[in-house]
């Protein structure tokens, strides 16, 4: 096969399903999500998902699916039988590995928690809950529709239904102090999840927070405090056996999200649904795909053309190796410099590596991998820029 012969494949393959609807738009979120007050015709959309899957299946024959991820938006607004139909279709097009990870993102409201069993029956074996905070006031300010009590209950229900679960918290929030975060994070760790995603709040263009920030109405932590918050997060999670395997993701050994790893390890993934991204190897060339962002328009296009693709770029070696670097250096395991050479056609500059090593920001592992050290993680973007130049 051209892909394996080209040396560009690493055998990883997964499917991302984007559900672009939310009950309300959160003021910090710039993901592709849409609020439809009157509800949606779910059967109509389900058919579009199935049709688009068929299209991508024809482009990626013979792959084994190791991970499926329902993200959003809010996939827990989806009827479990829609989830089931999509999973069945995937199984029909590809081989699903016996130990495949099938994750669904869910909001921890009571309404959604009631559906957990349905998702489990549909085949979902892992949930990722958007808890975001264990404090009432910040939850409101983040625009979340659940309470702290609901979130705690949802975590408990998820733990009893799914073999694996994770939840998200957002920190480095406006006015948050080190002490606030310490107690909140300790409570979170105490809830017994084997996986935690801990994201620092970033101000993204096109969000309400962006406008507020520019009006001076959001007191965001400065670089020093945000660096201290990050350090504190590393210390607390490490002490609890939940050290970071990626910039913002923490897990007990073996409990890492396989889907996340697939992205960071720069595997192949199909992205279906409105505004989904994919990376596919076709005839030895890596394609960067993206679909129409507006759900209704996406569905119309799928009906007309078989897919909602609006972007299908053939990446140059430089673009491909840049992505490999940007993604891979987020991982604790680092990257294999030999794979970089295969993808880019040249070696990483030793001078840059040596300078960064002298600063203690990168290091070689015993297996030959190059990784960014815990000291380098907080300034990862600058480190990667140095290496890629």
């Amino acid at each position: 096969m051209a892909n394996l012969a080209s040396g560009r494949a690493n055998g990883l393959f997964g499917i991302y399903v984007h559900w672009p609807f939310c009950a309300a738009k959160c003021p910090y979120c710039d993901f592709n999500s849409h609020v439809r007050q009157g509800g949606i015709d779910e059967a109509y959309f389900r058919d579009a998902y199935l049709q688009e899957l068929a299209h991508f299946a024809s482009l990626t024959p013979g792959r084994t699916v190791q991970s499926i991820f329902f993200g959003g938006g809010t996939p827990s607004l989806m009827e479990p039988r829609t989830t089931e139909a999509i999973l069945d279709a995937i199984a029909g097009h590809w081989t699903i590995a016996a130990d495949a990870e099938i994750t669904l993102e869910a909001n921890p409201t009571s309404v959604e928690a009631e559906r957990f069993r349905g998702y489990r029956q549909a085949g979902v074996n892992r949930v990722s809950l958007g808890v975001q905070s264990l404090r009432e006031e910040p939850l409101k300010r983040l625009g979340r529709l659940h309470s702290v009590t609901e979130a705690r209950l949802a975590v408990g229900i998820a733990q009893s239904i799914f073999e694996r679960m994770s939840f998200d918290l957002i920190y480095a929030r406006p006015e948050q102090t080190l002490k606030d975060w310490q107690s909140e994070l300790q409570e979170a760790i105490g809830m017994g999840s084997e996986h935690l995603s801990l994201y620092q709040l970033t101000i993204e263009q096109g969000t309400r927070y962006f406008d507020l920030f520019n009006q001076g109405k959001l007191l965001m932590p400065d670089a020093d405090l945000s660096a201290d918050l990050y350090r504190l997060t590393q210390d607390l999670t490490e002490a609890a056996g939940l050290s970071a395997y990626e910039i913002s993701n923490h897990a007990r050994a073996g409990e890492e999200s396989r889907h996340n790893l697939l992205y960071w390890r720069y595997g192949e993934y199909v992205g279906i649904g409105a505004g989904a991204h994919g990376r596919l190897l076709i005839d030895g060339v890596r394609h960067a795909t993206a679909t129409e962002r507006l759900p209704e328009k996406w569905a119309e296009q799928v009906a007309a053309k078989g897919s909602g693709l609006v972007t299908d770029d053939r990446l140059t070696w430089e673009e491909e190796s840049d992505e490999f670097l940007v993604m891979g250096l987020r991982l604790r395991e680092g990257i294999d410099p030999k794979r970089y050479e295969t993808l880019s056609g040249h070696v990483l500059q030793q001078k840059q590596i040596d300078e960064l090593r002298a600063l203690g920001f990168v290091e070689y592992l015993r297996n030959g991998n190059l990784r960014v050290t815990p000291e380098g993680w907080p300034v990862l973007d600058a480190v990667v820029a140095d290496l890629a130049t």
Partner: protein
Amino acid sequence: MTTDISLIRNFSIVAHIDHGKSTLADRLIQMTGGLDVREMKEQVLDSMDIERERGITIKAQTVRLHYAAKDGRDYVLNLIDTPGHVDFAYEVSRSLHACEGSLLVVDASQGVEAQTLANVYQAIDANHEIVPVLNKVDLPAADPARVRQQIEEVIGLDASEAVEISAKTGLGVDKVLEAIVTRLPAPKGDLNAPLRAMLVDSWYDSYLGVVVLVRVIDGVIRKGQKVRMMATGAAYELDRVGVFTPKLVQTGELGPGEIGFVTASIKQVADTNVGDTITDDRHPCAKALPGFRPAQPVVFCGLFPVDANDFDDLRAAMAKLRLNDASFSFEMETSAALGFGFRCGFLGLLHLEIIQERLSREFDLDLIATAPSVVYEIRLTDGTELKLHNPADLPDPVKIDHIREPWIKATILTPDEYLGAVLKLCQDRRGIQTNLTYVGSRAMAEYQLPLNEVVFDFYDRLKSATKGYASFDYQLADHREGDLVKLSILVNGEPVDALSMLVHRSAAETRGRVMCEKLKELIPQHLFKIPIQAAIGGRVVARETISALRKDVTAKCYGGDATRKRKLLEKQKAGKKRMRQFGKVEIPQEAFIQALKMSE
């Protein structure tokens, strides 16, 4: 046929910017029929874009007017439009020496300005008969009586017969023409003596080649004649001889007192020297005209292309500008910080600005200019003398006996309420006050100042201290010994040559501190902390530290959207390409441009 010398009047117009010199010139041309209305372009004489925009004249231009005077005779009036700025003081003095009289144009509401003074004193030095003209008398704010008094008190000219005009409407312009004929003297000269003509100016014309503006003193200059430039010794056979009306008209010859042009197969303007004497090759005159000196650049700076690939284009552009401007000089220079570029010499700051602007505007080049520097005279301990154009080339201080720096005589006119600020500025810049008087409600301060204090940001400071109301003019005076030291800027321990400068010891610390503070803002944080130091010799006089970057990471990635991350990386990579590598530190080019601006 040459013109009867008694019917010739040669004059120039002395004025401050915006007081109406060009408008009056246009009006004179129009009223004497040199051009009809259709041909009149606004301000005919300033032909370069920059000249027109800034209202200044860079090249001397001339126009011959035919005027039928009230005495019934037809006169030939030659107007020389002189360069209007001190940077071109020598050129101005040559243009003035080509005339016998001047019109002193003063805005009847603004009154006398510093530049008016500098120019009128030059006209007086050239023994001119001067006719004061009060312009814009039709404006409501005009106060002719007050300005008349000012002219008498400040300049010491009899203004009782000043002509009141509005160049814009044409009011009173006929009286100006009559005054030129009746009050200015006719030139003197000997028709039969060997040719003696002054080279007033020259420029490059794409059709005619080098055009030389001449004033004939004695004898006749003719088409076909072989002439010799006395300073260079070069001889040329003349192709064309004529005048501008302002249209070019070939007359074949020019006699004593006449002003016109000649062309020959002269390759470049650099082959002609303003002030040189042109004579007949076979029958030369005995003595050259007095007052000739070759053009001397006084201000130097390095010009570097922002994009190193533009180096050849920059060289070509400079060569092209020099075709028409021999006073601008350049030679190749390399800087560790800025790469390949040129060390350029200018007649003054305005000249520097004009050249820079023309390079970027006419040739579309992005440039970095290093801090302007003056020419220092250095005496080494072994007795050798050298001239220093670039502070980076300063010899080892132990080998230096002393350094002399150029001083200027400056005249500043300012509304009274800003006088304190002006005096303080001059004081801070090591100025020595020589005179302080009042011109109506405005103060006139005369100072001696070191030129190197002026080339920094003196203009900008003066402007902001006086809300733009002060006017400033200067003349080079002499070189004086000064306690000057080289201030080096070190970034992460590495000296940055482009930022080094020669400053007076007393100002070194302050300037070093300002530079360090600026650079701290201009250089982005790196992965390590960066000391920025200002040092004299080995002694650090100011220091700032850029702390290491602590946080720069994208927290989250949306559903496998690697594209966004890649785009961010591509942007970072592109940004790095615009940086200059300095040891381990990357300095954005903007930082050099901003740091060298010096004004806050």
